[in-house]
């Protein structure tokens, strides 16, 4: 009898990444998304199965947002660290990639100079040091990971070491992001000031506006998103994931059983920042511009709202949330341009009041009720 008992304990111990059905559903969703660019390329406009380039581009953008939301959910949903500064990491990733894209323009700029146009009108004669090597794609990719990662690590190390928690942490992340935004707004900083980077021509030699390139970027984004989801799932399912939730629920207790929260927080915080940076890097070539407004308070708070709407601490929720909120935004800004802010604002209020667990939470509750009805 004890034997059987023990085995069921082992069952408790072993946690699969996803249930078989979940894997299937995920694959299905991914497949649907992956199909769209093909439909766009394969069928002529007007054909019933044609997907407009606009829709593809839009979804590509949303997937970048979704990835950022996912990253934010890792820290907020699991470790209970609310960041109002993820827009910063997103933008830094974007800028890192943007530097390469700017170099890739070559002499096709307005001034036919080796330098980007904004450096020309600043009368700069050469690239500042921090632009060196950015003409190499892979170095830029390295920066995409390193810059947000390092910043997050250093900032996080000091913040967590001095045990800054909750609202305080949120506010200083906001301060950091705001400062960074002001810094990037300055033309003298060397990142194009308010205009940021735009008018990209090519990436790795491919014309950046060609449908093929678009599709490729789209698929890469989709893959990255899926990868990020699996990775995040793996982390949260591991024992480390359980430590993180413990940090969220009772950090001091965790100390007394021998864990030092610093390292765990730092790990997930940095991971999240890196994911966010990658999302930003994928975002830039698809929307064709990166500028400091991505670091504005508004952007970061909206990210939080995507997570909240989708359901924090569920990983899939933020992805849905990012899609839903931005979808609504796109829709509203066209159908009721004068009043969409009312609608959006109201949604935020209602979600916080009546959907504390977000869309996913609602879905779960409905599911449960449904099953009870059946039983």
């Amino acid at each position: 009898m004890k034997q059987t008992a023990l085995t069921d304990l082992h069952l408790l111990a072993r946690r699969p990444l996803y249930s078989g059905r979940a894997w299937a559903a995920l694959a299905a969703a991914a497949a649907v998304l992956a199909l769209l660019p093909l439909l766009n390329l394969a069928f002529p406009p007007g054909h019933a199965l044609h997907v407009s380039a606009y829709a593809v581009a839009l979804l590509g953008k949303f997937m970048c947002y979704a990835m950022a939301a996912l990253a934010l959910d890792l820290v907020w949903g699991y470790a209970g660290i609310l960041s109002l500064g993820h827009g910063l990491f997103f933008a830094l990733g974007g800028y890192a990639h943007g530097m390469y894209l700017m170099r890739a323009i070559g002499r096709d700029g307005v001034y036919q100079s080796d330098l980007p146009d904004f450096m020309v009108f600043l009368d700069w004669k050469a690239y500042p040091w921090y632009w060196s090597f950015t003409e190499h794609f892979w170095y830029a990719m390295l920066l995409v990971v390193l810059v947000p990662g390092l910043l997050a690590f250093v900032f996080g190390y000091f913040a967590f070491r001095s045990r800054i928690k909750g609202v305080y942490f949120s506010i200083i992340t906001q301060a950091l992001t705001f400062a960074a935004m002001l810094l990037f707004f300055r033309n003298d900083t060397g990142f194009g000031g308010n205009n940021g980077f735009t008018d990209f021509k090519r990436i790795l030699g491919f014309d950046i506006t060609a449908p093929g390139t678009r599709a490729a970027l789209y698929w890469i984004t989709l893959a990255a998103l899926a990868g990020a989801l699996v990775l995040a799932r793996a982390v949260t399912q591991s024992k480390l994931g359980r430590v993180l939730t413990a940090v969220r629920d009772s950090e001091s207790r965790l100390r007394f059983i021998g864990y030092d929260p610093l390292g765990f927080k730092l790990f997930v915080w940095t991971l999240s920042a890196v994911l966010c940076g990658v999302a930003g890097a994928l975002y830039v070539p698809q929307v064709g511009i990166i500028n400091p407004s991505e670091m504005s308070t508004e952007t970061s708070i909206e990210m939080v709202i995507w997570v909240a709407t989708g359901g924090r601490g569920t990983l899939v929720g933020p992805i849905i949330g990012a899609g839903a909120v931005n979808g609504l935004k796109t829709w509203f800004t066209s159908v009721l341009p004068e009043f969409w802010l009312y609608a959006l604002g109201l949604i935020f209020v209602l979600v916080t009041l009546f959907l504390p667990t977000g869309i996913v939470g609602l879905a779960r509750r409905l599911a449960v009720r449904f099953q009870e009805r059946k039983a």
Partner: protein
Amino acid sequence: MTSTHTESAMLDGGPSGEAGYGRVSPGGLDTSHGAILYLEGITVSFDGFKALNDLTLDIGVGELRCIIGPNGAGKTTMMDVITGKTRPTAGTVYFGQSIDLTTLNEAQIAHAGIGRKFQRPTVFEQHTVFENLELAMKTDKRVRPTLFSRLSGEQADRIGETLELIRLRPEAALPAGLLSHGQKQWLEIGMLLMQEPQLLLLDEPVAGMTDAETERTGELLNELRGRHSLMVVEHDMDFVNQIAGDGKVTVLHEGSVLAEGPMSKVQADPRVIEVYLGR
């Protein structure tokens, strides 16, 4: 040692220096003088108010020590000092002969082999009973090992045994938040045991328990006696009588030791009667 810690903390964010204790103890702890914990002249003051005042006290290996005293006598503060939550304004705290606790943080102290149970039961309510024990289980608690750790068979067995011990086997898969008050108390004790500490600090372990539960808890502690050193802070005199036996009892008053000795002797002490039992 602290330096190596901070340094390593920068590398992998985890306490590594003291993780050493985690691995080598109990053998590693030098208790050659028979005592496991020394408090010497501890003073703690918050903005002038002295919560502890030149407190001196030591606990022997395998001893079960009961600490009693009226509210505000400084019992909880003393535990805070031992577990590193509060730094003493003056005085030294030694764990065994060699470890100066005042230089370590909570996590390091926990690793060194001191477990603490709080006044209000604090368990991770979102986690299942099983997970609570798993988290507490003694192992390398740095980041990387935690990330890649898989639960081995005998680890699961140990959790199983503990579950039996604290009688929560049926609730293993329940979120801890759903447990009754007493069950939470036991779960917390269970978590202490999983840490395999050499010194257990128990802050009012039977507060709010039914008589049956209290009874059971007493038995539990008696089972632990000898295997671990225990320090029990308690108000409930009957309970103290039940577990203290002929062991030493310490009476705290206004932040320092008022009386010390077997229960019978202490209860007879007029000063103790005056400040505590009398009322």
